[in-house]
């Protein structure tokens, strides 16, 4: 079977549409190769030239696989898999010899759509998917119907999709969700946009633009206040003038979880501790997050000397654990001198002005606590701003920030605060993690997102141990009380749309944002727990997967039955004569002017009477009557007769 050129163009468009969203993250040479191959195939279809021989296709295929090997050093993984799939689909187009090959291309196109969801699942992506599906379906119908024109094909495809949408919704809501993943994923399976164990100016403000979920927390009992929700992550000791890193951890006696009770002296009366369950999204790192300070964990993990929780292997699948934390504590009151020395080291020669300021505080003030308060007051009083888009800093990052720009995000404040403390001889370190969380009243849990990423400081005071100090709270208390959005002033580097004060534009933006939020919550966030919560709210008692499956089957059966009724009804519509219906419409028009056709009156007699009553319309009335009679009774009307009658009657006006 020879495939005709229009079908081939359709298939080309399908592959083009499904691979286009990948263009910005595919390798340049892959983009170029695919574009060339598509263009070549279009030319072959246009000119009718024969397809390239197998050996040439094989050479191109092997060549591009070799190219991928050189570029990626592997053929496994998400990125390389997607690239390979797109290349193969494009090459398959050059091997279209029979209807079977076309079917393979269509199946491949369907599969490539899904790979796009690794990168984006937004509302526009969903819209684009629907449009792409319409094109694919239209091409698919073309494959089955051969010569059918584009318009009926498009209609058939649209009907197919529209009928499928309600069924899809039933399946989407009721299909028993399984907590993935089912098997180990390749290393690049997740975009690791999470918290890193390095902190330099800009790293956290970049992260805070991401809406991705870091983890979810459900508290047993009363949740703590928001300004107590510090989710502890990597602790950073070592500073090179720009970047904070954990530093060397060798030869330090590790603190174990069971020993933690000793080191944390729960002397405060209100320290009862708090229990909660964390569902951590995979982040490809070894550390886990817990509320400061953690004492117990339900899964095997190591509590390090600086109160981080570390797993042996990276978290590559969603992880659920329960933890117990003390909100009031004394941490490591007896600290090793070596650790305190580490907590005082700063790179020599850099940031002379900050050193000088710290030295002044040291000489004028008596206690470490007073130095600490002086630094916080400095942030508070000297016109510092909290912003997502801080200006760039030079070589002396701390000096530039403290004395020049005075605009920064939490990493700037934490970094310069710890620097000042160390310069003043107070042991201090940077702690990164998340602060706060968004309460989800539907599922009664908190969502902690990447945008909640935060950095704060800890200073070691004798008798009190490690004490948390959040310098950001000194200049933007709203950040800690109410979250990031409340703390960023409108003008601070937010996008144009966000700054505009036009009321309709603002309301549009808020609506879009609300829509996106609903989308994120209901479509993208429809996981087992949300499904459970939703179905319970819908009145399903004791939700089990069997119940869901039964309900799903019943719902699908009901809908298919309804659709079948609607669809098959048209089979039984017996000869409703279109000509007669049109003629009756013509009669109604005359009736409005008082010319009523009697039940016994034939068309010809009626026309004669009507002409007598309205002689000025004689031509039109006679013409319509003649056309109608010809259509109904002569039995040899051509295909143009009916539209002509319709036209005559619709344009007929009294």
């Amino acid at each position, binding site marked *: 079977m020879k495939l005709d050129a229009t079908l081939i163009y359709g298939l080309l468009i399908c592959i083009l549409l499904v691979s286009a969203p990948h263009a910005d993250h595919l390798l340049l040479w892959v983009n170029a190769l695919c574009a060339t191959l598509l263009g070549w195939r279009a030319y072959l279809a246009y000119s009718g030239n024969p397809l390239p021989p197998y050996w040439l296709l094989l050479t191109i295929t092997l060549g591009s696989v070799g190219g991928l090997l050189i570029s990626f050093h592997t053929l496994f993984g998400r990125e390389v898999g997607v690239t390979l799939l797109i290349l193969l689909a494009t090459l398959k187009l050059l091997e279209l010899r029979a209807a079977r090959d076309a079917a393979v291309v269509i199946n491949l196109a369907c599969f490539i759509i899904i790979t796009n969801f690794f990168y984006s*699942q937004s509302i526009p992506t969903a819209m684009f*998917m629907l449009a792409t599906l319409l094109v694919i379906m239209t091409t698919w119908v073309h494959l*089955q119907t051969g010569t059918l024109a584009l318009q009926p094909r498009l209609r058939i495809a649209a009907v197919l999709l529209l009928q499928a949408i309600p069924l899809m919704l039933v399946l989407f809501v009721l299909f028993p969700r399984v907590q993935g*993943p089912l098997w180990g994923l390749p290393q690049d399976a997740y975009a690791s946009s999470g918290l890193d164990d390095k902190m330099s100016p800009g790293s956290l403000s970049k992260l805070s633009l991401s809406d991705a979920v870091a983890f979810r927390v459900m508290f047993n009992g009363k949740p703590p206040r928001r300004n107590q929700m510090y989710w502890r992550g990597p602790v950073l000791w070592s500073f090179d003038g720009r970047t904070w890193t954990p530093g060397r951890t060798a030869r330090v006696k590790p603190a174990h979880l069971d020993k933690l009770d000793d080191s944390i002296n729960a002397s405060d009366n209100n320290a009862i501790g708090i229990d909660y369950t964390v569902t951590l999204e995979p982040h490809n790192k070894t550390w886990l997050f817990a509320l400061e300070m953690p004492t117990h964990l339900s899964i095997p993990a190591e509590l390090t000397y600086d109160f981080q929780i570390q797993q042996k292997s990276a978290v590559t699948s969603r992880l659920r654990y329960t933890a117990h934390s003390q909100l009031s504590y004394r941490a490591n009151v007896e600290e090793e001198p070596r650790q305190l020395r580490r907590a005082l080291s700063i790179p020599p020669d850099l940031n002379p002005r900050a050193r000088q300021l710290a030295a002044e505080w040291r000489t004028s003030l008596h206690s470490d606590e007073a130095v600490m308060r002086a630094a916080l007051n400095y942030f508070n009083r000297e016109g510092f701003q909290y912003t997502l888009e801080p200006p760039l800093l030079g070589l002396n990052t701390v000096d530039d920030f403290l004395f020049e720009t005075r605009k920064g995000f939490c990493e700037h404040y934490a970094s310069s605060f710890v620097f000042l403390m160390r310069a003043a001889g107070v042991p201090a370190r940077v702690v990164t993690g998340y602060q706060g969380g968004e309460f989800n009243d539907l599922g009664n849990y908190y969502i902690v997102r990447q945008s909640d990423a935060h950095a704060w400081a800890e200073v070691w005071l004798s008798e009190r141990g490690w004490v948390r100090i959040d310098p950001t709270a000194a200049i933007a208390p709203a950040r800690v009380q109410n979250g990031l959005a409340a703390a960023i002033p409108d003008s601070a580097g937010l996008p144009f749309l966000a700054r505009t004060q036009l009321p309709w534009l603002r309301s549009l933006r808020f609506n879009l944002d609300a829509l996106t939020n609903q989308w994120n919550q209901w479509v993208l966030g429809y996981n087992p727990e949300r499904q459970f919560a939703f179905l319970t709210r819908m009145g399903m008692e004791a939700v089990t997967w069997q119940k869901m499956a039964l309900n799903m089957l019943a719902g699908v059966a009901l809908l298919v039955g309804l659709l079948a009724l609607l669809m098959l009804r048209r089979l039984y*519509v017996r000869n409703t004569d279109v000509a007669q219906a049109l003629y009756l419409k013509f009669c109604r028009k005359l009736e409005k002017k008082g010319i009523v056709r009697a039940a016994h009156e034939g068309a010809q007699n009626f026309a004669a009477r009507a002409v007598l009553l309205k002689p000025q319309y004689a031509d039109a009335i006679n013409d319509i009557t003649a056309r109608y009679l010809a259509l109904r009774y002569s039995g040899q009307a051509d295909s143009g007769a009916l539209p002509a009658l319709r036209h005559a009657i619709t344009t007929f006006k009294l």
Partner: protein
Amino acid sequence: MIPEYNNHNGSHKQGHTHVLTTLKQKFRIWLFRPKIESGTVTLNQRRIFILPTRQGLGFAFLLLLMLLGDINYNLSLGYVLTFLLGTTGMMTMLHAFRNLAQLEIRAGRVDSVFAGGMVQFVFHFHNIGTLPRYHLKLRDNNGHSVTFDIPAQQSLEVKLPLPAAQRGWLGTGRLTLFTEFPLGLFHAWSYLEFDTRCLVYPRPAAPLPLPASSAQSGAGMFNMAGDEDFAGLRSYVAGDALPRIAWKALAREQGLQVKQFSAQQGRELWLDWFLLPPLATERKLEILTRWLLDADKQGVHYGLRLPNIELPPEHSTTHRAECLRTLALFGLSGEPS
């Protein structure tokens, strides 16, 4: 001992398979109700069968892969896509069924052909509903097929060309009307077997001269001519005698024509089986067919003599049809009159 045992076992097995085949046959008969039908057949749900195609199974496998991917990577939009494709695929089953349902089919008249030609079996399809039917295929068991669409509320005459290999009655056998519309995922079909049949005449032999004269008439063909009244002109045929040529008509530039005389109508030619040399039956019938066609063309009164059958000389279309029919069915048993 051992062979006996084996035999026993073998026969047992045979009996077993026999029962199975019988059961299978019975099931098929119950399911498909093979029956030769006449008149108009309406395709109702009892007559339409649907199974997924290979492509449909492949698509289901693809969807399964996609679903695994969705679960593994927690792709919510992936679930949407997978379910959308899945339900679309499922709904095409109804579409395929609807594409066949409530069609009215009746077999039309079939013109006879000579063996070696193609019979055009005619079927009248009537689509009463307001729904166009797309890409229907009518196929016989040997793979000859025709593809067509039927617009809404219209009738269509569908011709299925089948090769006529040998003389005699040719039926269509069981026909399959099927469709894989709209996506080729499901194969919906219905079996049709009408009582329509075509009479296939023997293949005419290569051109041969007519027998010079008939034994019964005793006289030469041309001797009798010229005595009677002039009856008109006809076109010249190679072998016509020179005296018969209408020279005047030639002079009037009306072409080469031959005068015909009424006595020619009485001219008789017997196409006689027994005068043929000993040849195979089919070969003899082919030669007789060739002669018959030539004699008919020349306007000769011809009779046909076969073993046990004798059709007296005549010249008319009904006589021609009768003779061809006799030749076509000669020696074939079970032939209804």
